């Protein structure tokens, strides 16, 4: 009896939720003039178009060396942006962490920089910096640098807070100086976690570098944009393919490194 009542109550709850979701979906698509039926109906056509146009032909393979050169440029820029950002983030992280922070003013300063850098998307940074630095690789580098700085600072603060509190206390009690504590307790303890974050940042930056490159006219993003605008779709397919492969390779490599160090 009781179980029956509960079941029917459950049933009603489900019906009500489904109804609410349907109403919202309808309202949302009505407001935005989005026709879901039409969208689904065009799907087969779109897939046919992709397979007939975005194919890699032997002709485009001749462009491969050039594309790989651009890809290398993008990857190196991502790594450069990440490594330089790491150095600055390390200091900001030490300043912002509760365990190693020396003053609350510096702590607030570090957290403020981190949140400003992080909460503005990398693409927006690229557009903002484009105005002052123009279309060159410096702009792309700076955009990635700022984005990485925000993310890594945040990650480092958390890592330091989490990993090293007890050892810091012990070294403080032995009369160690601040930098002795940082180099002998904090860094040895946090290093694997930090390297893991840095590898993650390099992966993310290679992905964003493509997008940033479209805006700043550098690297693989520029190749993509160029071929796309000249309607050379098979070259676009090749560029996309190369990006996907390189991202997968980088991911596999960093997973491997993580396994070894952690």
């Amino acid at each position: 009896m009781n179980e029956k009542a509960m079941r029917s109550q459950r049933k009603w709850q489900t019906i009500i939720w489904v109804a609410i979701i349907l109403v919202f979906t309808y309202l949302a698509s009505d407001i935005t003039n989005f026709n879901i039926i039409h969208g689904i109906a065009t799907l087969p056509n779109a897939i046919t178009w992709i397979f007939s146009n975005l194919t890699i032909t032997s002709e485009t393979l001749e462009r491969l060396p050039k594309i790989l050169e651009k890809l290398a440029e993008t990857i190196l820029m991502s790594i450069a942006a990440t490594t330089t950002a790491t150095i600055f983030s390390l200091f900001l992280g030490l300043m912002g962490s509760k365990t190693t922070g020396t003053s609350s003013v510096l702590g607030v300063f570090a957290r403020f920089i981190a949140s400003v850098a992080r909460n503005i998307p990398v693409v927006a940074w690229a557009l903002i910096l484009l105005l002052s630095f123009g279309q060159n690789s410096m702009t792309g580098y700076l955009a990635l640098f700022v984005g990485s700085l925000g993310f890594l600072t945040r990650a480092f603060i958390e890592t330091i807070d989490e990993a090293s509190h007890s050892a810091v206390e012990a070294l403080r009690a032995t009369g160690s100086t601040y930098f002795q504590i940082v180099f002998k307790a904090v860094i040895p303890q946090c290093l694997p976690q930090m390297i893991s974050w840095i590898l993650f940042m390099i992966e993310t930056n290679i992905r964003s570098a493509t997008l940033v490159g479209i805006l700043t006219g550098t690297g693989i993003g520029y190749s993509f944009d160029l071929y796309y605008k000249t309607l050379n779709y098979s070259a676009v397919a090749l560029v996309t393919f190369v990006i996907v492969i390189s991202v997968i390779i980088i991911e596999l490599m960093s997973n491997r490194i993580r396994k070894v160090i952690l």
Partner: protein
Amino acid sequence: MTLVEVKNLGKSYNAQTRVLKDVSFEVEAGEFVSIIGLSGAGKSTLLRCINRMVEIDEGNVIFDGLDVGSLNKQELRKMRTNIGMIFQHYNLVPRLSVIENVLHGRLGYKTTLQGVFNRFTELEKEHAFFLLEKLGIADHAYKRCDQLSGGQQQRVGIARSLIQEPKLVLCDEPIASLDPNSSEIIMDYLKSITKELNIACIVNLHQVEIACSYSDRIIGLSKGNVVFDGPSFMLTSAHTDEIYGTKTVETRKLVTV
């Protein structure tokens, strides 16, 4: 000779609660003193006021003739090299080797750069191995600390504090995370430190029986007040009832009678 003198010590973390109220006692060189009390009675705070890991609000702590509360940064660092500290959770750097952790105890004697670049003298290294030998963990010297058992890690902690060549060792519940066997080993080592090296030990403890059997003197703390201070044999069930806030249990009375 009086090594530590605590005078009218008071400490509060916020306006409402005073953790320590007017605490006064003295500790002689080479003395083994246990501080017992409930969790939250102020034991850890009291211990950390002695080497000023927490700031002193009221009163004074005099260590070896120095007023701890009024030292500047440089003087405080120098004073801390004379006070070893042992923790409940060992507070080692788990990813570093045993010997590296032991040598951390010498950092207080080094300049920043010497410390950062591991410039330890041969003498210091030999001393470290000598201590590990004494504590029976020399075989593990090159192992990472997180591969050791709790009892072994605590012995690394003891070695780290002894290599400082301290006059006083503060132990914050050194055996609270250990099994009875390891606890006994650790307490025996602490006892021998005071006997052989004439280093004073102030130990926070939960176990009254252990406190009674090892220490020369017991200080009972309740809600930030010293409610008992005397030789271990003077501690009666009436005192422990006051310290732990329990009603006198019939059976316990029978045992003492």
